[in-house]
């Protein structure tokens, strides 16, 4: 079911009317294969949802273009909508319906007959492991089960491009990991675009990751490709800046909350950690993770401010 085309954006920009000149997304240019899982990561307000809403044909960009498998999100929206499905950010199951009714009605909106939709709904709910709740009212279900109902709606559909905007936000760690299994399977079957601010989630699930910061794309690629954006393999983090880090070999980044991170070589990391320990600093040291890459790319001091 995977598409074999590309997701291509060129200078995609969105300025909301009434927000002055603030750009929700700014000159986003990317070219990605449309298979597997693509994760957009970034802080709140980074532009993830705006980008997803434009790609899912819900929002007009101010300028720039975007195509998915050659279909323009503005010009070919009608065709594209036959192939996409979305679970929006903060989507909720309708309280007065059951999971089966939720999935069934969504499929009918996609044009399926009642009897066909009913069968597909039952099958999809079984696939996400909530078959036993299919006739209960949504309002009686747990948060994790409600979220699975929403995932089942897109899973049941014929869409081969699926958008999930922060699908696990607000879930407890166990429910989140439980949902990861279904999302991982979904990504094997269809091109799945998900947004998250859980870096661990992107690291676990995504085949490719795009990092957004203040509306700009600051890094994109596979985890390995993103790792190569930072030439050092070790990370040291402190709550405040110290001269020891400033004078060390490596790349120093400072966050808006005052905390600092040094990406450095293995030898330098161990030398510094010894010095920091002796001077009584509280710090953490680890091999570079997505978390570090994100921290580093999103907090580069030379990053132009919008």
């Amino acid at each position, binding site marked *: 079911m995977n598409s074999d085309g590309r997701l291509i954006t060129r200078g995609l920009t969105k300025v909301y009317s009434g927000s002055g000149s603030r750009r929700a997304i700014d000159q986003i240019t990317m070219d990605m294969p449309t298979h597997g899982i693509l994760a957009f990561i970034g802080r709140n307000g980074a532009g993830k949802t705006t980008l997803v*809403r434009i790609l899912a044909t*819900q929002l007009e960009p101010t300028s720039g273009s975007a195509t998915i498998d050659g279909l323009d999100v503005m010009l070919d929206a009608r065709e594209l909508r036959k192939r996409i499905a979305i679970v929006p950010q903060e989507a909720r199951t*309708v309280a007065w319906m059951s999971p089966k*009714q939720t999935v069934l009605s969504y499929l*009918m*909106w996609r044009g399926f007959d009642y009897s066909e939709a009913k069968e597909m709904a039952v099958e999809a709910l079984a696939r996400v492991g909530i078959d036993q709740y299919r006739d209960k009212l949504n309002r009686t279900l747990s948060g994790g089960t409600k979220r699975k109902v929403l995932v089942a709606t897109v899973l049941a559909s014929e869409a081969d491009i699926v958008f999930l905007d922060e699908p696990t936000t607000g879930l407890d760690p166990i429910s989140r990991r439980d949902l990861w299994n279904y999302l991982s399977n979904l990504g094997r079957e269809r091109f799945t675009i998900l947004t998250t601010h859980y870096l661990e989630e992107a690291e676990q699930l995504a085949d490719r990751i795009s990092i957004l910061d203040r509306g700009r794309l600051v890094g994109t690629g596979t985890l390995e490709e993103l790792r190569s954006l930072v030439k050092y393999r070790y990370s040291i983090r402190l709550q405040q800046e110290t001269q020891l880090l400033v004078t060390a070999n490596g790349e120093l980044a400072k966050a808006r909350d005052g905390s600092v991170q040094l990406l450095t070589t293995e030898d330098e990391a161990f030398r510094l950690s010894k010095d920091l320990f002796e001077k009584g600093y509280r710090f953490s040291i680890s091999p570079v993770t997505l978390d570090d890459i994100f921290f580093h790319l999103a907090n580069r001091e030379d990053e132009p401010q919008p």
Partner: protein
Amino acid sequence: MMVQVKRTLNQIIAGILVNSIYEMKNYPIVLINTVLSPLSFLILIVFVSRGSLLGDAIVGGFIMSMFSNGIALQGDLSHLKNDFKLQEMVVSSPASAGAYVTGMAISELIYSSPALAVLVALAILYLHGTLIQGLLFCGVLATMFLTSIALGFTLATMSSDIVQSFAFSRLISTLFSTLPPVYYPITLIPHPFQYLAYLSPTTYAAQIAQNALGYLPISAHTAALDWAVLLSVTMVLFLIAVKKARWREA
């Protein structure tokens, strides 16, 4: 062509299922509210007039019922869009805006069907008219339905949360169905206030319906003028609704 018609029909049915059938089936308590709303005024007017305004009140019940559909539509569209994000899911699907809104509008009719059933029973018992009068009355009700749906849809595009949506509902309900002479003849209102009553489209609908069924004598000229105003208001509201409607946000 047939496949597309069938798909569109399924999309309309989806709206009906979500916004009326499932709600009525899973929350039967809502049926009591749909029956009581248009009938409460009817009962009040009949008691106060000692039965002399029974016919006007039944006519008013029908008009109120039709107009309430638009008020309910604006609340429901807003609720499903802002609180459940359902509309966003439907936008990113093959469903068209027309099929979505048509399904939702019909669902409001179905939702008010218990009240309409009671009113039809009362009409059969107490209203007597010719086939032409009946058709004219149905024409007024259909126009009232379209007016309220266009108004409801336009307001739904403006409300961004449930509090705003409820405020709109209460305001429209008071201005267009509680205050105007819908359940009684306009002649019962003191003269200066009659001008204010004519600001509401429901006044024209009630006047035409009351006249058609023989409860309010008005000249043919006035009846024609009432129709002209009612149809113009409906058309203007539809134009605004079409202009305001944005399936994809700007």
